């Protein structure tokens, strides 16, 4: 059970000259619409004191600003603040930023280059924007006199703007959303709070997984640092065996299933739903055609008999995806949309995509699925075959040809087509 925050809002020591000045939100049960939060969450912010001044790292959600400022005031004066660091500009971290900039008008703001566009939606004043320092090149670190903060560029974890901040003398990583989780416990530290391991994994799967390649890039930067303490923007501060959590990210970023196909082999997954067997016959014909091309492993799945999650795992590793759906009341059927709407959990950009299906009246499903696939940034090389009710032999032949062409696309052996725009109408 989440513990209510009953303490007065004062800062909590984290390391030498470093305090937690965040806020607890134990009653939250849903975060950003997509995440369930049985234990609420915390908005972690930190204050770092050096000989020549103070740095504030991240802020909190706007409606927790009073708590944040009270904790900050318990360890620092506003005129001591030299640097404000925003590792990520989403509103749960930038909510108190405009007010903090106003209270500390001498402070510079340190953000990644990618954060600049977002910042214009957070700060509106030209004067405030003139205090921005981009955390690359000569500005990749900031001095507090006897200690430095260094910035690690870790984009897409989980927004384009994300960065981490490293305090070398304390071996402390302010990691932003990386290594974070939605788990609120006033005891703050991972060796004191309740068991939050499920929240840690759940957070990775829903927030970081779509950016797996970027996670691996970030780990290349973080692992050599071997942090002695990790201070994330949500959830427990990791002071007991923090590198175990770094290793857990490495495990979570590994492919979930080993693919037995040879590394040179491409994989094509054909998913279908069929009411009367017509779309199923089209699926089988497409599969048969796709299998005629060497170097492609083709798999066929009836969506009506499976759960979404394992299919998402398969899709994450696949090279090509094909969806077959009948048209019901002008739309593709729900099992297809259920799967397609779950693909934001993984990276599908650049995979091959296609659709096909049987219909009774109008047959919109194929086009709607193709549009969705393009929206997910798959490449959709050709309009898929459709058949009214029972597919004829000729229509099944067209499905086989379509399957073969998809395999040829996958293997880069498709004959290039040249057409005149005038012929497109």
């Amino acid at each position, binding site marked *: 059970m989440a513990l209510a925050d009953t303490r007065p809002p004062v800062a909590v020591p984290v390391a030498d000259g470093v305090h937690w000045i965040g806020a607890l939100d134990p009653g939250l049960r849903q975060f950003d619409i997509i995440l369930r939060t049985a234990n609420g969450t915390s908005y972690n912010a930190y204050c770092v004191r050096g000989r020549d001044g103070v740095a504030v790292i991240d802020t909190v959600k706007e409606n927790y600003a009073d708590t944040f400022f009270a904790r900050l005031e318990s360890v620092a004066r506003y005129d001591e603040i030299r640097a404000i660091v925003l590792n990520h500009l989403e509103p749960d971290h930038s909510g108190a930023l405009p007010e903090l900039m106003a209270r500390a008008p001498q402070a510079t703001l340190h953000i990644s*280059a*990618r954060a600049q*566009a977002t910042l214009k939606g957070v700060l509106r004043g030209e004067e405030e924007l003139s205090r921005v320092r981009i955390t690359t090149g000569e500005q990749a670190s900031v001095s507090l006199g006897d200690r430095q903060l260094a910035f690690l560029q870790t984009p897409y974890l989980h927004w384009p703007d994300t960065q981490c901040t490293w305090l070398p003398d304390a071996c402390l990583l302010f990691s932003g959303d990386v290594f974070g989780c939605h788990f609120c416990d006033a005891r703050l530290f991972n060796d004191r709070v309740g068991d939050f391991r499920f929240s840690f994994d759940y957070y990775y799967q829903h927030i970081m997984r779509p950016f797996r390649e970027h996670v691996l890039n970030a780990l290349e930067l973080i692992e050599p640092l071997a942090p002695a303490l990790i201070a994330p923007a949500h959830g427990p501060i990791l002071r007991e065996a923090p590198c175990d959590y770094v290793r857990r990210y490495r495990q979570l970023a590994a492919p979930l299933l080993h693919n037995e196909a040879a590394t040179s082999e491409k994989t094509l997954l054909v998913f279908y739903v069929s009411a009367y067997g017509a779309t199923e016959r089209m699926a089988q014909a497409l599969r048969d055609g796709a299998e005629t091309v060497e170097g492609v492993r083709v798999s066929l799945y009836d969506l009506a008999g499976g759960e979404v999650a394992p299919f998402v795992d398969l899709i994450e590793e696949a090279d090509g995806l094909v969806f077959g759906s009948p048209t019901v009341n002008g739309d593709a059927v729900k099992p297809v949309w259920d799967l397609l709407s779950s693909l934001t959990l993984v990276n599908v950009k*650049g995979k091959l995509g296609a659709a096909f299906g049987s219909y009774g009246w109008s047959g919109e499903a194929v086009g709607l699925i*193709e549009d969705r696939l*393009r*929206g997910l*940034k*798959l*490449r*959709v*090389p*050709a*309009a898929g075959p459709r058949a009214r009710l029972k597919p004829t032999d000729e229509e099944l032949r067209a499905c086989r040809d379509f399957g073969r062409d998809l395999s040829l*696309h996958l293997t880069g052996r*498709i004959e*290039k*087509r*040249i*057409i*005149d*725009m005038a012929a*497109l*109408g």
Partner: protein
Amino acid sequence: MPKANVTFEDIGITVTVPAGTRLIEVSEKVGAGILYGCREGECGTCMTRIVQGAANLAEPSVLEDRVLKDNLAGRDIRLACQAQVLGGEIVVRPA
């Protein structure tokens, strides 16, 4: 009227088009994977990588330049809703 060949790498199709055509007009017709939003050069959704033949496109307008800069786009990126073909060979793919 001068013609140009625009190749969409993601779908393996080359289209012969009249000079003056904007990339998005062709992309939309052949179903290439270039997404678009406003179609007025403001939202940046249709950012497209010019793999080859950048000189065969009209120079970007001040507006397009600003949107590309705001989005930290590389030098080989154009907005498909703004970029007009002049002639020759152009190869593109979604950014």
